[in-house]
């Protein structure tokens, strides 16, 4: 446990010191999105990696958080700090209610149902023009502020978003090591066996679904208040798939893995920009190569690779 805490402290320190290295360049802006995507990946990982339930509709919850926050603050003049928890609670309740029928489904039926849910939410964003501004988007969302401190620059937003992200990491680590986490893993391995030893697997799945939705919604609110403009295109099926990819590439069931996956897939397009029209091909090929050579995700694959390299080097020295 102590080791866990030390690891987290080191991670947090690194996150806090990062801005010193960049002095407010545009990469700060990208790192803000790394933070938001890390939150989302962890949320999805709780569901997929721990409880073993797939979701192809998480962009919907992300979008609901963003739109609820955005509409309440931009159109109704609410305080953002009030809108954010209200959005999260609303999305949580919605997920809880819809979780009962949806999580009864298994395998590809579950994939299909969550996909459908995501698409329905996306269409609602597009069609309720009076409320959401429709496909043209919603602008004029205020930045968050504490007293006189307005989070209106990349550096300020960085600390804001990463504050939430670190809290999410801490929460997820705690959850994973708690009784609930163990019960979840039992459900993952065998639902029947878990039921036999007294885990209310159905309720547990629904609860984790709701928790996952709540964190996604919080990430959505943060997104809305840092971007100050949102449009439905950011919350479509493609983004749900991208989130899934982040979780798997990072490593299923690993919190730090989710961070690595989110960081890699958010930063990758920045590196690939130099490749111009070839970027999309390289991106696709990299995804495939990574799953082929690191089937356990970055969090397991990188240390393994490192060990192999050491061995190789050792072998060379012997020779």
């Amino acid at each position: 446990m102590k080791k866990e805490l030390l690891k987290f402290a080191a991670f947090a320190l690194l996150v806090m010191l990062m801005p010193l290295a960049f002095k407010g360049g545009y990469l700060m802006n990208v790192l803000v999105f790394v933070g938001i995507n890390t939150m989302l990946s962890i949320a999805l990982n709780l569901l997929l990696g721990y409880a073993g339930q797939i979701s192809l509709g998480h962009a919907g919850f992300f979008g609901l958080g963003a739109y609820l926050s955005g509409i309440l603050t931009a159109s109704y003049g609410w305080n953002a700090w009030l809108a954010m928890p209200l959005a999260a609670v609303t999305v949580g309740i919605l997920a809880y209610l819809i979780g009962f029928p949806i999580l009864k489904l298994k395998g590809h039926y579950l994939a299909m149902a969550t996909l459908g849910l995501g698409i329905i939410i996306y269409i609602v964003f597009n069609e309720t023009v009076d409320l959401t501004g429709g496909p043209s988007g919603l602008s004029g969302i205020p930045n968050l502020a504490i007293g006189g401190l307005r989070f209106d620059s990349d550096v300020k937003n960085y600390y804001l978003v990463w504050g939430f992200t670190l809290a999410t990491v801490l929460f997820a680590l705690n959850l994973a090591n708690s009784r609930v986490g163990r019960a979840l893993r039992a459900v993952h391995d065998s639902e029947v066996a878990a039921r036999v030893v007294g885990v209310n697997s159905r309720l547990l799945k629904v609860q984790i679904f709701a928790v996952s939705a709540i964190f996604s919604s919080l990430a959505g609110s943060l997104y809305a208040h840092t971007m100050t403009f949102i449009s439905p295109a950011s919350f479509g099926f493609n983004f749900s798939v991208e989130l899934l990819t982040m979780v798997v590439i990072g490593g299923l069931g690993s919190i730090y893995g989710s961070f690595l996956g989110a960081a890699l897939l958010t930063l990758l397009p920045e590196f690939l920009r130099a490749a111009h029209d070839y970027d999309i091909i390289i991106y696709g090929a990299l995804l495939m190569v990574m799953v082929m050579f690191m089937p356990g995700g970055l969090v397991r694959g990188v240390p393994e690779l490192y060990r192999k390299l050491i061995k190789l080097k050792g072998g060379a020295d012997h020779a």
Partner: protein
Amino acid sequence: MKKIQIVCSFIMLSLVCSTISFAADTIKIGALFSVTGPASFLGGPERNTAQMVVDEINKAGGVKGRKLELIVYDTAGDATKAVQLATKLIKNDKVVAIVGPSTSGESMAVIPVAEKEHIPLVSCAASIKITEPVKKWVFKTAQNDALAVAKIYEHLQKIKQTNVAILTVSDGFGSSGREQLKAQAEKHGIKILSDDTYGPKDTDMTAQLTKIRGSQAQAVIVWGTNPGPAIIAKNARQLGIKTPLYMSHGVSSKKFIELAGDASEGLRLPSGRALVADMLPKSDPQKKSLLSFLKDYQNHFKAEADTFGGHAWDAVMLVKNAIEKGGDSPAAIRDQLEKTRNFSGISGIFNFSESDHAGLTKDAFVMIEIKNKDWMIVK
């Protein structure tokens, strides 16, 4: 912790790489175009045109003896990416002005960045919301969709066909058009009998058209960009709909005629003058700009230019003129942009002022009809 170190070193590396590219003594202009993604039909010609104009300016000696440098990024039609890249242009590349983005959604997303960093933005997108209300640092070159709607409605009023059905695409372009179609109807005495939408990736619109056929509409107005309207034209032909179809300026390129084939015969749309430049009278003030743009584009890319590239032509030329008159600081460019009067561009004749950052009137459009797979001006 090893993994984190690796990630960090990657980040550092890219930072170093991105700061290397700077050359002394050039004036840097940033450009955001959606060269890939769903709006590539806009971003592609826009990037080509912008680069071409900058090359031509430099060949002719640059601006006040200094060369222009255009830094183009591809936003892929993604609002989040557009914001990141706008930040990158301003903070890392230190540009003095930005042309683009290509779409209204991206432009709306980028506006707060330009306003906050005090960098003039000359958007190439159509939505009226970009410059209304007026934002201090934001201008645009594409004709307002409001003007296109007014042009169609005036035409319909003239030929006394005032009962219409509208069919709009459910993306930024279509919903902005739909808003304008509904808002201006009453003013022009137009009655909207049926109001339908279709998805940008839909492949069959016979259901919507069947519904429209059942109404008493005298004209159908379709608001979308390729390929949707081409499919609609074909569907309408399949259903034997005789009601005349009106399209938006979003399909004003030869591509549309190619896609819709025979079904495009007789369709009408409002369009910028670039499509019909050779048919314009000699006295038309835009004719000179238009012909030089069309000729340059043909020489550079061995392809026919369309009105979309024209938005970028106008944007770069406006910025260049502003630099010539006022100097290369962002604030001076902004002030000079606002003072632009009677600039004959591709999209129309621009007159910016403190209360108008779009600068065009509905005369920027002409009604054209498709006849024998070519454009004709409707008198």
